[in-house]
């Protein structure tokens, strides 16, 4: 069944268009890559999917439930939505608000009311998965750019969300770390998570993405194809190389 379903979805910023008549269906367990020029609307779509903004017109359905402004007005429902969807923002600065990296990662599990041992387990695991063990007692906002990205990812993983929205999560990481994260994402996907990732590096995501959704500079979806489709279109591939 379709996990995410967008029908004619539009979003406008006060003086620019954000998204223009999007139609999109994403199934559970897919690994979706969003690509497109700068300012084409990738981050805006993430914002809508995560319930930070509600569409101006059109529908957004998650698991068959329409997510509208009214739906989002209810704190409890919003919270349920947020628990289902983990987001790593493009600017990870806004995402880290605790006084130590360990605290940062423990924040989510603690709110869920897990036992101290379980929390500790999650913290250790997440630190290890993202290769952040050395940062454990550091203050998050004092980390370097790449370290912040990794900690943000770790803090989202600790909640074990069903859907992961990752807005250019590999920016500023070393190539080795990028590979490591990609492998991690692939594992998560095989564990049944749905992953939606924005990226500008086709070469890198080509290996992991199962589906590629390409925005154009008019904030529309100009193409939506599976990895298999893409294999058959070498000119498409060269186009994606420039995005």
């Amino acid at each position, binding site marked *: 069944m379709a996990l995410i379903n967008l029908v004619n979805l539009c979003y406008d910023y006060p003086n620019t268009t954000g998204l223009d008549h999007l139609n999109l269906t994403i199934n559970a367990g897919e690994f979706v890559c969003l690509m497109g*020029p700068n300012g084409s609307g990738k981050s805006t779509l993430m914002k809508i999917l*995560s*319930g*930070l*903004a509600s569409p101006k017109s059109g529908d957004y359905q998650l698991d068959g439930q329409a997510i509208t402004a009214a739906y989002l007005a209810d*704190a*409890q429902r*919003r*919270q349920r939505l*947020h*628990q289902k*969807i*983990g*987001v790593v*923002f493009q600017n990870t*600065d*806004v*995402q880290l*608000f*605790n*006084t*130590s990296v360990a*605290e940062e990662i423990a*924040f*989510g*599990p*603690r*709110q*869920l*009311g897990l036992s*101290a041992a379980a929390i500790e387990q999650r913290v250790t695991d997440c630190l290890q998965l993202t290769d952040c063990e050395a940062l454990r*007692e550091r*203050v998050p*906002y*004092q980390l370097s750019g790449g370290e912040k990205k990794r900690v943000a990812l770790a*803090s*989202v993983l*600790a*909640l074990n*969300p069903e859907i992961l929205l990752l807005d250019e999560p590999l920016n500023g990481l070393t190539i080795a770390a990028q590979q490591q994260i990609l492998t991690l994402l692939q594992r998560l996907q095989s564990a049944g998570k749905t992953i939606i990732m924005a990226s500008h590096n086709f070469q890198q995501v080509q290996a992991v993405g199962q589906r590629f959704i390409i925005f154009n500079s008019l904030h529309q979806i100009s193409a939506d194809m599976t990895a298999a489709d893409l294999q058959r279109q070498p000119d498409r591939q060269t*186009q994606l190389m*420039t995005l």
Partner: protein
Amino acid sequence: MEPKQPTNLPAWLQAPASTTSHATRVTFWQRNQRHLRALLRRLAQPAPAIQPRWHLAPQINLIRLLLLVLLIALIQNAVLLWCLALLLGFQLLWLPPGQLRRFVRSWLFSSVVAVIIVLPSYWLNGPATLLFFSLKTSLMLANAQYYRLTTPFQDLLSGLKSLHFPDVLIMTLAIAVTYLRMLGQHLLLTMEALETRTVAPTKHPYRLIGAMFGNLYLKSYAYALELYAAMEARGFNGHYVRSTPTHSHWRDYLSLSPDLLVLILFVLWRP
């Protein structure tokens, strides 16, 4: 989509940079950056370096502070005040030397400032009033300073929570401190970025300040949504769940007893 080839460089960009000098005025940016760094350093401490000898329940600490300040304000009796000062002095004994120096430094500084303000009242009311007032003020400052030095922010929150303050207030406080870090850092970095592009004295510093705080507000508005979602996504629902260690309460109440004793003396003792 053809990758667009950049046009040739304009002439001015090819010319060697000419550095010009301008007469400058005092910059207040530097000073603000210093203050902000100090603030951030203070906020960055996950926990204060010192833990008092006995870790008391946070709400007891808070009540103690309130009680002490109130007592000092009420008491006009030198002997009782002396007792309170001794009480504090004994507590200070447990501080590690470095912390003690830090305490003394900031306490002296704030006391001196307070005394300077009341100094002119010497000519109004004579030395006795001045002396008494100064002593009481610095005693209050010392107690407040001790509290600040020994209480991590988390403890303040859980203290308020145990005292049944509404969740809205506690959450607002928590978010305020979180944001103080983030916005402070943002402001600091913005000032630094601004500085790297300040190549001559700014003619309209005020306009820049307006722009900076305007930006700060607008960005924080956008951040508010994102950060709150990030918090909610991680299960935050406005209730601060804290694993509070279970306490043997007699110790907490015992720690209040000297203050209560002084209170009783204050009420009953009519010399």
